[in-house]
């Protein structure tokens, strides 16, 4: 009889990535089923189901969510063998979860940016030259939240996470310069047409879509560093079959599978050994940026408050 089915909550579960993982896991002897959906949605779901957990594993949520889940003590701590080589930035100090992918949150521009100047820093966004050339995206998306967190952390007291008045003023001005993209409209089409030639997004997304739409983009290695988001993996407390869940984590995070997975989807693995085995382009994607140091233990606790302020007072 096949091993018991593992239920995995993952934003990666609904598309090709989920199909890929399912297939490979099956070869490795795991029977898994995904519950997909947006990161925020899965986060809410995990909190709601605290008393009656349905998930065995959560996979693919980024730092802020994972640290908050940890604060709710939803995880079953488990340190897999491959965690030894993982950088300190990529694992929870208490072994609740480990990160497996890293993605720079980047600023880029196309050749349609007219005039002499090109943006060189996040802090250029309030300049009149770039008015109406970019969008922050919907505040519900993980990427947008990362962008905002990265900006605000520059103005925050690293000990308390309190943002200075300058920070808010900058953000207000930047928002006033930004545009709002109608939901459902095709973003990359507007980028291609030169309508919004400045792009704020995650590295892989920019690279893929630029290639697909034949857009010539230039990435900015912004002053003060680029926020690095990392998708994580953890076991939910109360899982039906802890043994299988642990085995799955061991398998999934192993450098071999990670290299294969990352190669297939042009992602940069967090594990140094897997990264070393990745294609040149993938490694370059990570290595061309300076990492912005963010203390997620502090920042993740403050993030909702920041977003609330943005929602109520900052956005136009």
């Amino acid at each position, binding site marked *: 009889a096949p091993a018991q089915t593992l239920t995995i909550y993952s934003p990666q579960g609904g598309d090709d990535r989920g199909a890929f993982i399912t297939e490979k896991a099956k070869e490795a002897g795991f029977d898994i089923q995904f519950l997909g959906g947006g990161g925020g949605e899965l986060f809410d779901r995990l909190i*709601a189901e605290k008393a009656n*957990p349905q998930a065995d594993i959560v996979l693919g949520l980024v730092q802020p969510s994972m640290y908050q889940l940890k604060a709710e003590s939803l995880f079953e701590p488990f340190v897999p063998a491959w965690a030894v080589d993982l950088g300190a930035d990529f694992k929870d100090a208490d072994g609740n979860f480990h990160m497996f992918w890293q993605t720079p949150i980047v600023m880029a521009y196309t050749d349609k940016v007219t005039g002499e100047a090109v943006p060189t820093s996040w802090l250029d966004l309030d300049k009149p030259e770039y008015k109406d050339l970019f969008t922050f995206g919907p505040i519900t998306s993980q990427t947008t939240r990362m962008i905002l967190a990265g900006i605000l952390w520059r103005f925050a007291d690293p000990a308390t996470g309190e943002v200075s008045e300058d920070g808010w003023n900058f953000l207000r001005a930047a928002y006033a310069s930004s545009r709002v993209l109608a939901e*459902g409209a095709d973003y990359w089409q507007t980028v291609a047409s030169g309508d919004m030639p400045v792009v704020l997004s995650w590295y892989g997304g920019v690279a893929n879509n630029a290639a697909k739409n034949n857009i010539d983009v230039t990435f900015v290695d912004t002053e003060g560093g680029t926020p690095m988001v990392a998708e994580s993996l953890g076991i939910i407390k109360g899982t039906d079959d802890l043994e299988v869940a642990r085995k799955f984590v061991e398998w999934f995070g192993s450098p071999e599978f990670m290299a294969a997975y990352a190669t297939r989807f042009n992602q940069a693995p967090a594990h140094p050994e897997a990264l070393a085995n990745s294609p040149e382009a993938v490694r370059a994607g990570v290595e061309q940026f300076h990492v912005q140091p963010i203390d997620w233990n502090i920042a993740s606790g403050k993030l909702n408050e920041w977003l609330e302020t943005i929602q109520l*007072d900052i956005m136009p």
Partner: protein
Amino acid sequence: MTRTALSPNKLLQGVGLLIIAWLVIAFLYYPIAHVLIAAFFPEGQLSLGAAERLADSSRVTRSLWNTALVAAVTVVTVNVVGIFQVAVLEFFKVRFAPLLLLAFSTPLVFSSVAAVSGYNFVYSSHGFLTKLLLMVFPEMDPNWFTGGMAVVFVHTFTMTGYHILFVRIALRRIDFSTVEAAQSLGVSPARAFISIVLPMLVPVLLATSLLVLLGSLNSFAAPAMLGGRDFYMISSMIQALVGLGRTDMAALLSLLLGAVSLVIFLWMKHVESRGGTVSTAKTQAPLRKTAIRNRVTNAIVHALAYILVVIYAAPILITIAFSFAPVESIIRDAFPSAFTLDHYIAVFSNARAFGPLGNSLMLATLAVAVALAVSLFAAIRIRSTKGVVSDSLEFSLFIPWVLPGMMLAVGLISAYSGPSLLTFGQTLVGGYWLLPIAYVFLVIPLMVRMLGAALAGIDPNINDAGRSLGASAFYRFRRLTAPLLAPVIALVTAMSFNDLLSEYTLSVFLYNINNMPLGVALQNAARADGQDQIAISMVYVVLLLTFSLIVILAADRLGADRSGQR
């Protein structure tokens, strides 16, 4: 026999009331109370911080004004368009009436995100009409279709569905001899339509206006997609706040929405209670269509009707056309330049895609069946017996309407994330049943309202006649009330079914791994950035649309046959 003896009838009524009371308390009041208490008594202390915070935010204030304005304008425009449609469908002879019916029925099945993106295909900066206009007026702003005007426009043409359903049925029920009486007093049918027919339709017009009002107060897709940077409505705020975990603020805004809706609801009840729209005629003469004799007027009416057909059909036809177009064409063109069946093949060859469809069919069937039973019982009880019980019943079943779906979901989750006495020790969150239960409450208000409006149009003597012939309450229901209500029952069933089939807002909170519904699956598909996702989701839209349209039109026919109206 003593006066206090219980008849089986009363016993049955009592049991029914008890069950409804449990449903309402357990799945409405208790969850709401949970949210409110969490919001306003965070640590057992009354806290009004949220209110102050909201009052200080100019964004919130603006969204409130926008919402109020859009809702008010929408109610007016929808009534104008809707009543015109009903008139040309049922009252006046207009050529190609079946075509009109088909076009005017589309808002019933083409709404929310699908509709707004359909309208975008026509009116947005790279839409069909805009491209046409740009050829004629190269100077015009290609982004002309944004902001409050665009939202109202889309509202107007996506919210006329209730008129097509309920106002039309009520109109067919009108005693036509009153129109003849007006004619004999020298009033043309067209004027009689305004001075006699419309006032007789007041109860159902009020009920539909309320639906429209609530629809636009809670409208989400249209302002989100068309509003642009400076135009947002309150439901976007609520959603954003829930997303940030500020359920207290969201609850506060919802309360505000609810209070407004409630005031309007009470006013409507008051107007209704002045009543007197039940015809006293011995037998009612059936409706006959009248030709408009004045040639100019007739031409104008025909022209307007066909213009409406174009407005309704264009977004759908373009959506359908694009569902056959290659991905590049969808992204680039104003109208497909090439056609392919690939997307359909992709959908039909992917067995996994049918799981959510099966789930949704099952969930919707369950929920609609329960909701229908509850609503029929409640509507009849509310109509037949006045008093505190009926009033609170009516009020309670109205609440889910004024409560954003999200709030109900949040409440249910916070109330039932652990075992509870009200659910006999079960933990609902994470289980199968939470979603269908929420679905029941999602569709009940519409049912109760519409069935109530229909009941008001039935001569009470009919029921009395049944009683004097010794028919039990159940028999009377089966043989008199149900057949007379059949058209409305069929339609509310079909509508609720369709709504639930693609429901997203609430589902996304409550589904579990075993019942992921179609709406969630569609959204996930649309959001995932894989190849061809846009096209695939368009195929789904087209399939869903076809299916729903068939359901609605079948229900319309079926209901008409059952009630003996030809």
